[in-house]
């Protein structure tokens, strides 16, 4: 098949080599002859096109009226149905109003306005004469200002100008406070009860059956001054597994209570709530980026973009049988940050 005209690159005959290509080129035949449209030659077609444009503009008028009908005659009450209907009528009305005008004008241009293509010359973007003139002007300006001849003026202006930028940066200092230690602390502390999210009712250890999971906030969160900021750090997931399926590392044996364990709900990746608990596999899944944590291995990352286990909240039970924290988290919760390990 490699005949001499198939243009395959390995074929030396047809594929120009350096120096050979461009030797001989086809003559530009110039603009193709104009082909008249139906409306150019047939008066009836012209009349028809004119009527079509008119009808399209009438469609636009109909659309605007439809908009008014939807706006004034569909009352917004508390039903979703009326809202949907009004939105539909306003939208369709606008669509007809706009498309009628738009399609009408384009149809007019394409059928009735002249369609002869015209050639226009390009001009040099920067004629050499202009450049020479401009160069002289700039030279004169610089000369008259004397900035080249007077280094004292130039250097002090430069220094003043650079320095004057800094207040414009410094003035934004009060956009926010310095981080300090706040990212290390949450509302959890020794004796703070675990309560349901969002009601704030405390949870008894006996309420937490094996296989169940609770979304938990610290007691008093709903009354806290900075509720959302505290909640963004303090939310916890509480699960009960059979105690033998948990594998606590040395020093963390007493962080749970009879198979009940509490882990931060804030993903260690970028901070989404790790809201999905797979009861059968004991996996916690973040719906944002699918980081998966294994509760039986102290919420170790087993899949996804997170690199760190979810921090565990040490818990116990108080005298009345309610679950309480025994301390704050032992490490900062949520996404990593530069000063996290300091």
């Amino acid at each position: 098949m490699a005949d001499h005209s198939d243009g395959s690159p390995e074929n030396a005959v047809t594929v120009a080599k350096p120096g050979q290509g461009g030797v001989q080129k086809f003559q530009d035949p110039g603009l193709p002859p104009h082909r008249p449209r139906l409306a150019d030659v047939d008066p009836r077609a012209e009349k028809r096109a004119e009527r079509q444009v008119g009808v399209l503009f009438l469609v636009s008028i109909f659309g605007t009226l439809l908009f008014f009908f939807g706006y004034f005659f569909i009352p917004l009450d508390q039903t979703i149905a009326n809202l949907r209907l009004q939105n539909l009528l306003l939208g369709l009305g606008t669509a007809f109003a706009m498309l009628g005008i738009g399609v009408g004008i384009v149809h007019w241009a394409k059928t009735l306005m002249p369609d002869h293509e015209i050639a226009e010359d390009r001009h040099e973007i920067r004629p050499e004469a202009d450049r020479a003139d401009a160069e002289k002007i700039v030279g004169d300006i610089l000369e008259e200002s004397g900035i080249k001849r007077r280094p004292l003026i130039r250097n002090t202006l430069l220094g003043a100008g650079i320095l004057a930028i800094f207040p414009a940066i410094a003035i934004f200092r009060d956009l926010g406070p310095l981080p300090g230690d706040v990212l290390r602390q949450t509302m959890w502390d020794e004796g703070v009860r675990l309560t349901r999210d969002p009601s704030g009712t405390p949870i008894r250890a006996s309420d937490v059956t094996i296989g169940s999971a609770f979304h938990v906030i610290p007691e008093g969160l709903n009354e806290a001054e900075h509720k959302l900021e505290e909640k963004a750090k303090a939310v916890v997931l509480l699960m009960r597994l059979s105690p033998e399926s948990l594998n606590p590392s040395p020093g963390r044996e007493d962080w749970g209570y009879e198979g009940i364990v509490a882990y931060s709900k804030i993903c260690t990746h970028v901070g989404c709530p790790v809201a999905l608990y797979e009861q059968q596999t004991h996996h916690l899944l973040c719906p944002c980026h699918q980081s998966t944590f294994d509760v039986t291995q102290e919420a170790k990352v087993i899949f996804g973009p997170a690199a760190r286990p979810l921090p565990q909240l040490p818990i116990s039970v108080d005298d009345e049988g309610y679950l309480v924290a025994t301390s704050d988290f032992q490490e900062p919760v949520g996404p990593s940050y530069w000063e996290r390990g300091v």
Partner: protein
Amino acid sequence: MSSSAAGHQYQPKTNVGKIANFVDTRVGGSAIVKEFGRKIFPDHWTFMFGEVALYSFVILLLSGTFLTFFFDPSMAETHYEGSYVPLRGIEMSVAYASSLDISFDIRGGLFMRQVHHWSALLFVAAVSVHMLRVFFTGAFRRPRELNWVIGGVLLILAMAAGFTGYSLPDDLLSGNGLRIIDGVIKSIPVVGTYISFFLFGGEFPGTVIIPRLYVLHILLIPALILLLIAMHLFLVVVHKHTQFPGPGRTNDNVVGYPVGPVYAAKAGGFFFIVFGIIAAISAAFTINPIWNYGPYDPSPVSAGTQPDWYIGWVDGALRLMPGILAGFPFEWEIPFPWGTNTLSLNVLFPALVPAGIVFTLLFAWPWIEAWVTKDRREKHLLDRPRNAPTRTGIGVAGVVFYCVMWAAASSDLIATHFMVSLNDVTYWLRVLVIIGPVIGFIVARRIALALQRKDREIVLHGRETGRIVRLPHGEFIEVHEPVDEYKRYKLVSFDSPVTLSAEADVNGHVSKGEKGRAWASKFFFEDRVAPVTPAELEEAHSHGHHGEVASEHDKAAISNK
């Protein structure tokens, strides 16, 4: 002022004429009309995308202005008392409540929100497709390099405008989006935590982020976009529009329709068409039903949530990056003399590197190509994508790279829709994001080369007519019909650059840079298909045609059939 205008005293006759004359003598309108009234614009359907972008931005300004009259960006706490019953009495921010009011209690408010959101999606899409058009046709080459850069900045600003607006209603979905941004910012070494605290006015979420984003969204970013659009269009006027090669179209002329009346009518009418289509979509398809999500709360999240499409590729990159790969963690605790600092490459890397690669290559591309080809002449004639196979291949590689990350932002939905394992989807996409661009490059370049050969075939042997003819001696052939000279010129009038081997400088030394350039030139142009020359066409005709009528005798047989 000498009274040249007053000297001849032109006296308009009609009232309209008087008004026009008044304005003309104050602003110099005649000169403007003379310059632009009959300016020529080339016509091609691919030149519409920029128009779509411009028009959807105008619609964004119109609908956005309406929304600002009713939206209150405050994060103060309130209890909702509006018409939407399921949320009555719920504690929420004023911003969210006023977004609900716009949706449920202001006539046309929901429609305007829909129009605003849909045109934002269309705006970024149109900018992106417009840039792809400019890339694949080589319209970024001299003298348009800077306008290409302006376009790239506009793309970034369009995404920023979209994201800041997306966050404003302060609903659960947009709040989680902000939380992700906060997490990404915190991963920046040294200054990340400080940037986060300055941006949010303290700890996330704080009470200032929505008003701050609001100012960015309605003032700063649109002003920058407007400024850059003005520069963009000014440069279009300076350069004049590019055109595809073809009969009568040269590097020194512009062939098309005059602004008045044809082009103005087509382009002006097109604005109404874009508006109409956005209105029709907004009428029929709900976008961002914030009332279903509820107010922002750091604890709940809904599964299957996704960002607006143009943020998808960054979110997808965040999903694809493994936190720990084969036991190797991407979060490092680095010991310093003053203590241990944490570097979260599992967040920082996907957030910065893919976007960094895409935008660095995008901004640098005009100069890369000029360096490889050593061709710094003005290029006003576009390339058909097939006639620049390597560029087309690289562009397709970029598109594949982008689209795999984009698909990754829907990895959970892909898994649930096609009933496959979420983990497997992620593993496959991790592989694809690396090898997909390579495959895309090879395939696209081969297709481009094949299409060029097909063009040669058509020029040399004519087009296939579909007529099968049996010759007297029993052979079946398909009759080919030669193309006319206009069509032929379109198929042969393109540049096909050749490999430029390394050249020595004045000292006879071949520098390393020059060797690299020669390698790149070979990579770009080693496989090439040259345009047909008149001699080749002559030869093809005189030798008789393969697969075409073989002899005069047979020709007679066919025409007598």
